[in-house]
Protein backbone atom coordinates (compact mmCIF):
# COMPACT_ATOMS: atom_id res chain seq x y z
CA UNK A 1 0.00 0.00 0.00
CA UNK A 2 2.89 2.31 0.72
CA UNK A 3 3.96 2.18 -2.91
CA UNK A 4 0.63 3.38 -4.27
CA UNK A 5 -0.29 6.10 -1.83
CA UNK A 6 2.00 8.36 0.09
CA UNK A 7 0.94 9.35 3.51
CA UNK A 8 1.88 12.75 4.74
CA UNK A 9 3.59 11.25 7.74
CA UNK A 10 6.75 13.30 8.08
CA UNK A 11 7.77 12.00 11.46
CA UNK A 12 10.91 10.45 9.94
CA UNK A 13 13.95 12.66 9.96
CA UNK A 14 15.00 14.66 6.88
CA UNK A 15 17.63 12.27 5.58
CA UNK A 16 15.52 9.25 6.40
CA UNK A 17 13.09 10.12 3.63
CA UNK A 18 10.72 12.19 5.70
CA UNK A 19 11.28 15.34 3.69
CA UNK A 20 8.91 16.14 0.82
CA UNK A 21 9.92 19.46 -0.71
CA UNK A 22 7.52 19.13 -3.65
CA UNK A 23 4.60 17.99 -1.50
CA UNK A 24 3.46 15.50 -4.11
CA UNK A 25 3.39 11.73 -4.00
CA UNK A 26 5.92 9.61 -5.83
CA UNK A 27 3.34 8.50 -8.40
CA UNK A 28 2.20 12.00 -9.22
CA UNK A 29 5.75 13.28 -9.55
CA UNK A 30 6.69 10.48 -11.91
CA UNK A 31 3.59 11.21 -13.98
CA UNK A 32 4.70 14.84 -14.22
CA UNK A 33 8.19 13.79 -15.30
CA UNK A 34 6.73 11.50 -17.94
CA UNK A 35 4.52 14.34 -19.14
CA UNK A 36 7.48 16.70 -19.48
CA UNK A 37 9.41 14.18 -21.55
CA UNK A 38 6.37 13.36 -23.68
CA UNK A 39 5.74 17.07 -24.19
CA UNK A 40 9.29 17.38 -25.51
CA UNK A 41 8.68 14.47 -27.90
CA UNK A 42 5.56 16.12 -29.27
CA UNK A 43 7.26 19.49 -29.57
CA UNK A 44 10.02 17.72 -31.48
CA UNK A 45 7.42 16.53 -33.99
CA UNK A 46 5.68 19.88 -34.22
CA UNK A 47 8.99 21.73 -34.57
CA UNK A 48 9.98 19.32 -37.36
CA UNK A 49 6.65 20.12 -39.00
CA UNK A 50 7.50 23.82 -38.69
CA UNK A 51 10.91 23.16 -40.21
CA UNK A 52 9.43 21.46 -43.29
CA UNK A 53 6.78 24.10 -43.60
CA UNK A 54 9.32 26.94 -43.50
CA UNK A 55 11.35 25.02 -46.06
CA UNK A 56 8.36 25.02 -48.44
CA UNK A 57 6.78 28.21 -47.14
CA UNK A 58 5.65 29.32 -50.61
CA UNK A 59 3.92 26.08 -51.56
CA UNK A 60 2.57 24.44 -48.39
CA UNK A 61 -1.03 23.14 -48.68
CA UNK A 62 -3.75 25.31 -47.12
CA UNK A 63 -5.43 23.28 -44.36
CA UNK A 64 -8.84 24.91 -44.95
CA UNK A 65 -8.86 23.45 -48.45
CA UNK A 66 -7.78 20.01 -47.31
CA UNK A 67 -10.09 19.31 -44.37
CA UNK A 68 -13.45 20.44 -45.70
CA UNK A 69 -15.66 17.50 -44.87
CA UNK A 70 -18.24 16.87 -42.20
CA UNK A 71 -19.86 13.46 -41.76
CA UNK A 72 -23.29 13.42 -43.35
CA UNK A 73 -22.78 16.65 -45.25
CA UNK A 74 -21.42 15.29 -48.48
CA UNK A 75 -20.30 17.86 -51.00
CA UNK A 76 -20.86 20.73 -48.60
CA UNK A 77 -17.81 22.86 -47.92
CA UNK A 78 -17.32 22.83 -44.15
CA UNK A 79 -13.74 23.85 -43.42
CA UNK A 80 -12.61 22.94 -39.91
CA UNK A 81 -16.05 22.45 -38.38
CA UNK A 82 -15.31 18.80 -37.75
CA UNK A 83 -11.93 19.43 -36.11
CA UNK A 84 -13.54 22.11 -33.96
CA UNK A 85 -16.10 19.52 -32.92
CA UNK A 86 -13.32 17.03 -32.10
CA UNK A 87 -11.51 19.67 -30.05
CA UNK A 88 -14.68 20.38 -28.12
CA UNK A 89 -15.24 16.67 -27.44
CA UNK A 90 -11.73 16.33 -26.06
CA UNK A 91 -12.05 19.42 -23.84
CA UNK A 92 -15.40 18.09 -22.63
CA UNK A 93 -13.87 14.74 -21.71
CA UNK A 94 -11.13 16.62 -19.91
CA UNK A 95 -13.80 18.37 -17.87
CA UNK A 96 -15.51 15.13 -16.91
CA UNK A 97 -12.07 13.82 -15.92
CA UNK A 98 -11.44 16.73 -13.50
CA UNK A 99 -14.92 16.23 -12.13
CA UNK A 100 -14.04 12.58 -11.52
CA UNK A 101 -10.86 13.64 -9.71
CA UNK A 102 -12.85 16.14 -7.66
CA UNK A 103 -15.45 13.50 -6.76
CA UNK A 104 -12.55 11.23 -5.79
CA UNK A 105 -11.35 13.83 -3.32
CA UNK A 106 -14.76 13.68 -1.71
CA UNK A 107 -14.65 9.85 -1.74
CA UNK A 108 -17.84 9.78 -3.79
CA UNK A 109 -17.66 6.44 -5.60
CA UNK A 110 -20.88 6.86 -7.55
CA UNK A 111 -19.86 10.18 -9.08
CA UNK A 112 -16.33 8.99 -9.89
CA UNK A 113 -17.83 6.02 -11.74
CA UNK A 114 -20.20 8.21 -13.74
CA UNK A 115 -17.57 10.80 -14.70
CA UNK A 116 -14.95 8.16 -15.59
CA UNK A 117 -17.53 6.53 -17.83
CA UNK A 118 -18.30 9.83 -19.59
CA UNK A 119 -14.57 10.46 -20.04
CA UNK A 120 -14.13 7.09 -21.71
CA UNK A 121 -17.05 7.78 -24.05
CA UNK A 122 -15.55 11.17 -25.01
CA UNK A 123 -12.19 9.56 -25.73
CA UNK A 124 -13.82 6.88 -27.88
CA UNK A 125 -15.72 9.48 -29.90
CA UNK A 126 -12.49 11.38 -30.46
CA UNK A 127 -10.54 8.34 -31.66
CA UNK A 128 -13.43 7.40 -33.95
CA UNK A 129 -13.53 10.90 -35.39
CA UNK A 130 -9.84 10.77 -36.06
CA UNK A 131 -10.24 7.48 -37.91
CA UNK A 132 -12.90 9.16 -40.04
CA UNK A 133 -10.58 12.13 -40.73
CA UNK A 134 -7.83 9.77 -41.83
CA UNK A 135 -10.19 7.86 -44.07
CA UNK A 136 -11.42 11.03 -45.78
CA UNK A 137 -7.89 12.32 -46.20
CA UNK A 138 -6.57 9.03 -47.63
CA UNK A 139 -9.44 8.80 -50.11
CA UNK A 140 -9.02 12.40 -51.25
CA UNK A 141 -11.66 14.27 -53.17
CA UNK A 142 -10.78 15.86 -56.50
CA UNK A 143 -7.57 14.15 -57.52
CA UNK A 144 -4.59 15.87 -59.16
CA UNK A 145 -1.74 15.44 -61.60
CA UNK A 146 1.78 14.97 -60.36
CA UNK A 147 4.64 16.53 -62.31
CA UNK A 148 8.09 15.13 -63.02
CA UNK A 149 9.46 17.25 -60.17
CA UNK A 150 6.92 15.79 -57.75
CA UNK A 151 4.73 18.90 -57.65
CA UNK A 152 0.96 18.88 -57.84
CA UNK A 153 -1.30 20.37 -60.53
CA UNK A 154 -4.99 20.68 -59.66
CA UNK A 155 -7.92 21.44 -61.99
CA UNK A 156 -10.29 24.39 -61.83
CA UNK A 157 -13.10 25.59 -64.03
CA UNK A 158 -13.26 29.22 -65.14
CA UNK A 159 -15.36 30.12 -62.08
CA UNK A 160 -12.48 29.01 -59.88
CA UNK A 161 -14.17 25.88 -58.57
CA UNK A 162 -12.28 22.65 -58.25
CA UNK A 163 -12.95 19.99 -60.89
CA UNK A 164 -12.54 16.28 -60.20
CA UNK A 165 -10.29 14.12 -62.35
CA UNK A 166 -13.31 12.06 -63.42
CA UNK A 167 -14.82 15.18 -65.02
CA UNK A 168 -11.59 16.13 -66.76
CA UNK A 169 -10.59 12.81 -68.27
CA UNK A 170 -12.07 11.48 -71.49
CA UNK A 171 -11.94 7.82 -72.12
CA UNK A 172 -9.42 6.67 -74.66
CA UNK A 173 -9.35 3.20 -76.19
CA UNK A 174 -6.68 1.96 -73.82
CA UNK A 175 -6.54 0.41 -70.40
CA UNK A 176 -3.92 0.73 -67.75
CA UNK A 177 -2.92 -2.77 -66.70
CA UNK A 178 -1.72 -3.24 -63.19
CA UNK A 179 1.99 -3.85 -63.26
CA UNK A 180 2.97 -6.80 -61.12
CA UNK A 181 6.37 -8.00 -60.05
CA UNK A 182 6.11 -11.20 -62.04
CA UNK A 183 5.57 -9.31 -65.32
CA UNK A 184 8.63 -7.11 -65.34
CA UNK A 185 11.46 -5.88 -63.26
CA UNK A 186 11.15 -7.62 -59.91
CA UNK A 187 11.52 -4.55 -57.77
CA UNK A 188 8.86 -2.52 -59.55
CA UNK A 189 5.14 -2.91 -59.11
CA UNK A 190 1.99 -0.84 -58.92
CA UNK A 191 0.11 -0.31 -55.72
CA UNK A 192 -3.00 -2.37 -55.24
CA UNK A 193 -5.34 0.37 -56.42
CA UNK A 194 -4.33 1.94 -59.70
CA UNK A 195 -6.56 4.71 -60.92
CA UNK A 196 -9.20 4.12 -63.56
CA UNK A 197 -7.80 7.04 -65.58
CA UNK A 198 -4.45 7.38 -67.27
CA UNK A 199 -2.45 10.56 -67.57
CA UNK A 200 -3.05 10.49 -71.35
CA UNK A 201 -6.79 10.49 -70.81
CA UNK A 202 -6.50 13.44 -68.45
CA UNK A 203 -4.32 15.36 -70.91
CA UNK A 204 -6.69 14.65 -73.80
CA UNK A 205 -9.73 15.64 -71.76
CA UNK A 206 -8.07 18.82 -70.58
CA UNK A 207 -7.09 19.85 -74.14
CA UNK A 208 -10.65 19.25 -75.34
CA UNK A 209 -12.35 21.42 -72.70
CA UNK A 210 -11.58 25.13 -72.93
CA UNK A 211 -13.16 25.90 -69.54
CA UNK A 212 -10.48 24.12 -67.56
CA UNK A 213 -7.51 25.77 -65.91
CA UNK A 214 -4.64 24.54 -63.78
CA UNK A 215 -3.82 25.59 -60.29
CA UNK A 216 -0.26 25.06 -59.02
CA UNK A 217 1.02 24.64 -55.50
CA UNK A 218 2.77 28.01 -55.42
CA UNK A 219 1.17 30.59 -53.13
CA UNK A 220 0.77 34.13 -54.47
CA UNK A 221 1.02 37.41 -52.57
CA UNK A 222 -2.47 37.01 -51.10
CA UNK A 223 -1.64 33.54 -49.79
CA UNK A 224 -3.75 31.77 -52.40
CA UNK A 225 -2.67 29.10 -54.83
CA UNK A 226 -1.60 30.43 -58.25
CA UNK A 227 -3.98 29.80 -61.15
CA UNK A 228 -2.37 29.57 -64.59
CA UNK A 229 -3.82 31.00 -67.80
CA UNK A 230 -5.23 28.56 -70.35
CA UNK A 231 -2.06 28.59 -72.50
CA UNK A 232 0.24 28.16 -69.53
CA UNK A 233 -2.01 25.41 -68.19
CA UNK A 234 -1.81 23.44 -71.43
CA UNK A 235 1.94 23.89 -71.64
CA UNK A 236 2.49 22.94 -68.03
CA UNK A 237 0.28 19.86 -68.11
CA UNK A 238 1.65 18.48 -71.36
CA UNK A 239 5.29 19.22 -70.59
CA UNK A 240 5.47 18.24 -66.93
CA UNK A 241 2.46 16.05 -66.11
CA UNK A 242 3.65 12.59 -65.35
CA UNK A 243 1.12 10.67 -63.30
CA UNK A 244 -2.13 11.10 -61.48
CA UNK A 245 -2.73 11.11 -57.75
CA UNK A 246 -5.99 10.40 -55.97
CA UNK A 247 -5.98 10.87 -52.23
CA UNK A 248 -2.96 10.88 -50.01
CA UNK A 249 -0.47 8.39 -48.65
CA UNK A 250 3.11 8.56 -47.46
CA UNK A 251 4.53 8.93 -50.99
CA UNK A 252 1.91 10.85 -53.00
CA UNK A 253 -0.48 13.53 -51.87
CA UNK A 254 -3.08 15.15 -54.09
CA UNK A 255 -3.24 18.23 -51.83
CA UNK A 256 0.41 19.26 -52.21
CA UNK A 257 3.75 18.19 -50.90
CA UNK A 258 3.85 14.59 -49.59
CA UNK A 259 5.54 15.93 -46.44
CA UNK A 260 2.21 17.44 -45.43
CA UNK A 261 0.61 14.01 -45.50
CA UNK A 262 3.59 12.40 -43.76
CA UNK A 263 3.41 14.83 -40.87
CA UNK A 264 -0.36 14.58 -40.74
CA UNK A 265 -0.24 10.81 -40.42
CA UNK A 266 2.66 10.85 -38.00
CA UNK A 267 1.59 13.60 -35.62
CA UNK A 268 -2.15 12.96 -35.50
CA UNK A 269 -1.39 9.24 -35.49
CA UNK A 270 0.96 9.54 -32.53
CA UNK A 271 -1.56 11.72 -30.74
CA UNK A 272 -4.40 9.33 -31.58
CA UNK A 273 -2.30 6.50 -30.17
CA UNK A 274 -1.96 8.48 -26.94
CA UNK A 275 -5.72 8.99 -26.81
CA UNK A 276 -6.26 5.31 -27.49
CA UNK A 277 -3.91 4.21 -24.70
CA UNK A 278 -5.50 6.86 -22.47
CA UNK A 279 -8.90 5.29 -23.09
CA UNK A 280 -7.52 1.84 -22.26
CA UNK A 281 -5.93 3.12 -19.02
CA UNK A 282 -9.15 4.93 -18.14
CA UNK A 283 -11.11 1.70 -18.65
CA UNK A 284 -8.77 -0.15 -16.29
CA UNK A 285 -9.16 2.55 -13.64
CA UNK A 286 -12.92 2.62 -14.26
CA UNK A 287 -13.18 -1.06 -13.39
CA UNK A 288 -10.97 -0.57 -10.34
CA UNK A 289 -13.36 2.15 -9.20
CA UNK A 290 -16.35 -0.12 -9.68
CA UNK A 291 -14.63 -2.96 -7.83
CA UNK A 292 -14.03 -0.59 -4.95
CA UNK A 293 -10.23 -0.81 -5.01
CA UNK A 294 -9.80 2.86 -4.19
CA UNK A 295 -12.60 2.77 -1.66
CA UNK A 296 -10.64 0.14 0.27
CA UNK A 297 -7.44 2.10 -0.25
CA UNK A 298 -9.28 5.13 1.13
CA UNK A 299 -7.69 7.21 -1.57
CA UNK A 300 -8.57 8.03 -5.17
CA UNK A 301 -5.14 9.30 -6.14
CA UNK A 302 -4.88 6.80 -9.00
CA UNK A 303 -7.75 8.62 -10.70
CA UNK A 304 -5.79 11.83 -10.32
CA UNK A 305 -2.70 10.30 -11.96
CA UNK A 306 -4.51 9.02 -15.03
CA UNK A 307 -6.32 12.34 -15.02
CA UNK A 308 -2.98 14.12 -15.44
CA UNK A 309 -2.19 11.94 -18.44
CA UNK A 310 -5.63 12.52 -19.93
CA UNK A 311 -5.36 16.30 -19.61
CA UNK A 312 -1.93 16.15 -21.17
CA UNK A 313 -3.42 14.45 -24.22
CA UNK A 314 -5.93 17.30 -24.43
CA UNK A 315 -3.13 19.83 -24.04
CA UNK A 316 -1.20 18.33 -26.94
CA UNK A 317 -4.31 18.36 -29.11
CA UNK A 318 -4.73 22.09 -28.50
CA UNK A 319 -1.30 22.62 -30.09
CA UNK A 320 -1.81 20.11 -32.91
CA UNK A 321 -5.11 21.83 -33.72
CA UNK A 322 -3.44 25.23 -33.94
CA UNK A 323 -0.40 24.25 -35.95
CA UNK A 324 -2.05 21.78 -38.29
CA UNK A 325 -5.44 23.33 -38.92
CA UNK A 326 -5.34 27.02 -38.04
CA UNK A 327 -1.94 28.59 -38.67
Amino acid sequence: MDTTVTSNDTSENTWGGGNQPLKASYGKLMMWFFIVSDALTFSGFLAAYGFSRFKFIDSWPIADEVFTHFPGLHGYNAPMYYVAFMTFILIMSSVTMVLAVDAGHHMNKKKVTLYMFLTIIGGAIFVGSQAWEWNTFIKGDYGAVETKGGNILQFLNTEGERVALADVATSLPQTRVQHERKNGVWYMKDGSDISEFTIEEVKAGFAANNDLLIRTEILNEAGEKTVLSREESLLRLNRDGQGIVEGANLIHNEYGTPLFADFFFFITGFHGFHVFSGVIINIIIFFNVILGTYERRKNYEMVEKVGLYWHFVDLVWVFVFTFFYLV
Partner: protein
Amino acid sequence: MAHEHKLEIFRGLLKFKSNTSKIWGVLIVLSIVTAVEVALGIIKPEFLVEERFMRMKLLNWIFIILTIFKAYYITWDFMHMRDEVKGLRRAVVWTAVFLICYLVFILLTEGDYIFDVYDSGFQSWDF
Protein backbone atom coordinates in the same frame (compact mmCIF):
# COMPACT_ATOMS: atom_id res chain seq x y z
CA MET B 1 -7.19 15.59 3.42
CA ALA B 2 -4.94 18.20 1.93
CA HIS B 3 -6.93 19.02 -1.16
CA GLU B 4 -7.36 22.71 -0.98
CA HIS B 5 -7.91 24.42 -4.28
CA LYS B 6 -7.22 27.97 -5.21
CA LEU B 7 -10.47 29.15 -6.68
CA GLU B 8 -9.47 32.32 -8.47
CA ILE B 9 -8.81 32.72 -12.17
CA PHE B 10 -7.80 35.80 -14.18
CA ARG B 11 -5.56 36.93 -11.30
CA GLY B 12 -8.42 37.08 -8.85
CA LEU B 13 -10.84 38.83 -11.17
CA LEU B 14 -13.11 35.80 -11.12
CA LYS B 15 -13.54 33.87 -7.90
CA PHE B 16 -15.54 30.66 -7.73
CA LYS B 17 -17.37 29.24 -4.76
CA SER B 18 -16.38 25.62 -5.24
CA ASN B 19 -13.90 23.60 -7.25
CA THR B 20 -16.70 22.17 -9.39
CA SER B 21 -17.99 25.56 -10.41
CA LYS B 22 -14.42 26.63 -11.22
CA ILE B 23 -14.10 23.63 -13.58
CA TRP B 24 -17.28 24.64 -15.43
CA GLY B 25 -16.06 28.23 -15.54
CA VAL B 26 -12.78 27.18 -17.12
CA LEU B 27 -14.68 25.04 -19.62
CA ILE B 28 -16.68 28.08 -20.68
CA VAL B 29 -13.49 30.15 -21.07
CA LEU B 30 -11.82 27.43 -23.16
CA SER B 31 -14.92 26.93 -25.33
CA ILE B 32 -15.20 30.64 -26.05
CA VAL B 33 -11.52 30.83 -27.01
CA THR B 34 -11.85 27.79 -29.32
CA ALA B 35 -14.98 29.27 -30.91
CA VAL B 36 -13.14 32.55 -31.52
CA GLU B 37 -10.23 30.66 -33.11
CA VAL B 38 -12.47 28.70 -35.44
CA ALA B 39 -14.48 31.81 -36.37
CA LEU B 40 -11.28 33.75 -37.16
CA GLY B 41 -9.97 30.78 -39.14
CA ILE B 42 -13.10 30.72 -41.30
CA ILE B 43 -13.60 34.47 -41.73
CA LYS B 44 -9.91 35.35 -42.02
CA PRO B 45 -10.29 39.13 -41.61
CA GLU B 46 -8.34 40.87 -44.35
CA PHE B 47 -6.52 43.22 -42.02
CA LEU B 48 -5.19 40.39 -39.87
CA VAL B 49 -4.03 38.41 -42.89
CA GLU B 50 -2.22 41.32 -44.56
CA GLU B 51 -0.58 42.96 -41.57
CA ARG B 52 2.55 41.27 -40.35
CA PHE B 53 4.54 41.44 -37.17
CA MET B 54 8.05 39.96 -37.23
CA ARG B 55 7.34 38.41 -40.67
CA MET B 56 4.32 36.49 -39.37
CA LYS B 57 0.68 37.30 -40.10
CA LEU B 58 -1.17 38.94 -37.22
CA LEU B 59 -3.81 36.21 -37.51
CA ASN B 60 -1.21 33.53 -36.82
CA TRP B 61 0.08 35.49 -33.84
CA ILE B 62 -3.45 35.58 -32.46
CA PHE B 63 -3.84 31.82 -32.95
CA ILE B 64 -0.56 31.06 -31.19
CA ILE B 65 -1.24 33.41 -28.28
CA LEU B 66 -4.75 32.00 -27.79
CA THR B 67 -3.28 28.47 -27.87
CA ILE B 68 -0.82 29.32 -25.11
CA PHE B 69 -3.67 30.92 -23.19
CA LYS B 70 -5.66 27.68 -23.46
CA ALA B 71 -2.63 25.59 -22.55
CA TYR B 72 -2.20 27.71 -19.41
CA TYR B 73 -5.72 27.07 -18.20
CA ILE B 74 -5.61 23.35 -19.00
CA THR B 75 -2.37 22.97 -17.04
CA TRP B 76 -3.25 25.31 -14.18
CA ASP B 77 -6.84 24.32 -13.53
CA PHE B 78 -7.41 20.88 -15.04
CA MET B 79 -4.02 19.48 -14.07
CA HIS B 80 -4.13 21.43 -10.78
CA MET B 81 -0.79 23.12 -11.35
CA ARG B 82 -2.24 26.12 -9.52
CA ASP B 83 -2.34 24.07 -6.33
CA GLU B 84 1.18 22.61 -6.56
CA VAL B 85 4.16 24.10 -4.78
CA LYS B 86 6.42 26.56 -6.59
CA GLY B 87 9.27 24.06 -6.92
CA LEU B 88 7.22 21.45 -8.76
CA ARG B 89 5.59 24.07 -10.97
CA ARG B 90 8.90 25.54 -12.05
CA ALA B 91 10.61 22.18 -12.52
CA VAL B 92 7.90 21.17 -14.98
CA VAL B 93 7.00 24.41 -16.74
CA TRP B 94 10.35 26.14 -17.07
CA THR B 95 12.14 23.02 -18.29
CA ALA B 96 9.59 22.43 -21.01
CA VAL B 97 9.22 26.08 -22.03
CA PHE B 98 12.96 26.69 -22.26
CA LEU B 99 13.75 23.55 -24.26
CA ILE B 100 10.81 23.99 -26.60
CA CYS B 101 11.67 27.62 -27.37
CA TYR B 102 15.24 26.61 -28.12
CA LEU B 103 14.22 23.72 -30.37
CA VAL B 104 11.67 25.77 -32.26
CA PHE B 105 14.09 28.64 -32.79
CA ILE B 106 16.83 26.37 -34.17
CA LEU B 107 14.56 24.40 -36.50
CA LEU B 108 12.62 27.36 -37.87
CA THR B 109 15.81 29.31 -38.57
CA GLU B 110 17.25 26.33 -40.39
CA GLY B 111 14.03 25.80 -42.36
CA ASP B 112 14.02 29.43 -43.42
CA TYR B 113 17.64 29.16 -44.55
CA ILE B 114 16.89 26.09 -46.67
CA PHE B 115 13.95 27.90 -48.23
CA ASP B 116 16.35 30.68 -49.29
CA VAL B 117 18.74 28.13 -50.78
CA TYR B 118 15.94 26.56 -52.82
CA ASP B 119 14.54 29.94 -53.77
CA SER B 120 17.69 31.69 -54.90
CA GLY B 121 19.77 28.76 -56.13
CA PHE B 122 20.40 28.05 -59.81
CA GLN B 123 18.62 24.75 -59.65
CA SER B 124 14.90 24.76 -60.51
CA TRP B 125 12.77 22.65 -58.20
CA ASP B 126 9.44 23.21 -59.91
CA PHE B 127 9.33 21.08 -63.03
